[in-house]
């Protein structure tokens, strides 16, 4: 059997998930210029919010997903207001913001583990009954089709919002130069707050989709974050379209990398890619 079509499909699914994480990460990096290491936990928050809503409280699955996404968004927004905004007001260095986000990540992961134990859980409704499509010699599940469609639609919407709306222009102004944006009358802290909301909500969606595809666990955030960050660096940090391209490239390398060696080495492969890029292309594939 030819394995290559399956590897390509797996790569694309992984790329779609990573690009959701990378999108939010780059949006936030663009506006604030620090590596938000707590970004991955937003995916965990989204995943567990849906878990509670649909499996514990019995909400309809669609409603749960929408509320779960909003929940991740609000957590991100709240963190900006409680932690990052006060630090920005004190003109704290990027390193302080980075360490603070490390603290947020550490604490949130612990809270989730305390509330839900470290057990692996799935969000899927009827395990083993989902529809499977065959594409040549490869298969793709219904969930994975949804993942693909959802992330493509989301990227299109986000691209439109950033390009065409006043809000998008304000985000661009803040990303280009926060001081100048302030001078021309943009309420930068408000915009950055929204950016945290949107970025975190998108990450939350990524966590939820993973929950339907495979499952969620408290420690999933770090790995997702790292993949998103690596994808961003491949594509050029702060460049949201570059991040998407980087995500699919990372997905390809990872999945083809484990063709000949065992799947446990996925993370190590991703980091080897990162280090190669840092050494030879620190500003990503698109920049000189």
């Amino acid at each position, binding site marked *: 059997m030819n394995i290559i079509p399956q590897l390509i499909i797996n790569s694309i699914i992984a790329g779609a998930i990573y690009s959701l994480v990378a999108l939010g990460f780059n949006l936030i990096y663009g506006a604030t210029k620090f*590596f938000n290491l707590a970004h991955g936990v937003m995916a965990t928050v989204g995943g567990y919010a849906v878990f509670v809503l649909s499996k514990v409280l019995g909400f309809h699955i669609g409603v749960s997903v929408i509320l779960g996404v909003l929940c991740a968004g609000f957590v991100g927004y709240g963190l900006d207001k409680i932690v990052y905004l006060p630090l920005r007001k004190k003109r704290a260095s990027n390193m*302080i913001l980075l360490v603070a986000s490390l*603290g947020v990540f*550490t604490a949130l992961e*612990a809270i989730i583990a305390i509330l839900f134990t470290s057990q692996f859980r799935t969000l899927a409704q009827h395990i083993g009954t989902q529809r499977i499509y065959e594409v040549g010699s490869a298969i793709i599940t219904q969930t994975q089709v949804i993942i693909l469609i959802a992330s493509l639609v989301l990227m299109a919407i986000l691209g439109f919002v950033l390009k065409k709306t006043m809000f998008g222009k304000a985000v661009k102004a803040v990303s280009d130069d926060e001081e100048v944006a302030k001078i021309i009358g943009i309420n930068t802290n408000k915009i950055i707050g929204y950016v945290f909301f949107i970025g975190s909500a998108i990450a939350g969606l990524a966590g939820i989709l993973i929950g339907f595809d495979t499952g969620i666990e408290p420690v999933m955030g770090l790995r997702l974050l790292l993949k998103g960050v690596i994808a961003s660096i491949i594509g050029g940090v702060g460049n949201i379209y570059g991040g998407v391209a980087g995500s699919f490239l990372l997905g390809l390398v990872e999945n083809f990398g484990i063709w000949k060696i065992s799947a446990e080495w996925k993370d*190590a492969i991703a*980091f080897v890619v990162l280090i190669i890029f840092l050494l030879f292309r620190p500003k990503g594939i698109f920049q000189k």
Partner: protein
Amino acid sequence: MEYIIHLAILFVLYAILGVSLNLVVGYTGLLSVTHAAFYGIGAYATALLSTLFEVPFLISVLIGIVVAGFFSFLMGMVLSRFRGDYYALASLGFNVIMYSIFLNWASVTRGPLGIAGIAKPEIGGVLFSSNLLFLLLAAICLVGIYGISRFMVSSSFGRVLKAIREDETVITIFGYRTLDYKLVVFVISASMAAVAGSLFASYISFIDPSTFTVMESIFILAIIILGGLANIKGSMVGALFLILVPELLRFVGLPNDIAGYMRQFLYGIILIVLMLYRPQGLIGEYKL
């Protein structure tokens, strides 16, 4: 009494890790999030050499130092080209790769099963079998590492490290090859962490990869940030504090696994609060 000795041993181990990490983070200003990797290398060196070849403890410590030195040299060659957030990220990546190796190179490390039956240290016919004797041995190591660190930071070398932290470009145009300095301090710091690893392995007599995660690196970082950057005594204070406080949680009667996460939560909160209100830590001499 045994319990207090146990805590004292833990304190000594983390003091070694903290003091050595402070050389890189506090003095040189490089936010390294990979210290647990070298801790792990030392631990695995002693564990493997003692269980497979019955190599004496001191020799295994030396081999651990050499192996950690070798790996840190390679990593340092890459890392020394970066500063700031990219350094933090790339170093974190190395921790993930190293953890991956501990976990997945099962033919050597036995993967998640870990290595049991590691012998207690025996030096010159003296078997350090009781915890009190072991504490003595560990304390001697700490004193040695403390002394070396003090010597380093009070020499011209240490002053150059601080200048690199403050403005690397400027100290370069005054004729210093900063890459060499960054590399040397990184290798020394990693070698010291390996000593802590060797001690840990022979003390607990069982190790598995879960001790050497990115989270452990964050714990060590929390210790030195709490105690104060660029202050060696501060790292000892930080280690003391962060060893003792989680122990209080035990007295509240929390189950063991939850206590572990409570500790993680606490470390995260400490990092956030410090960044917000006291980024220089308790007695630090450098603000990020």
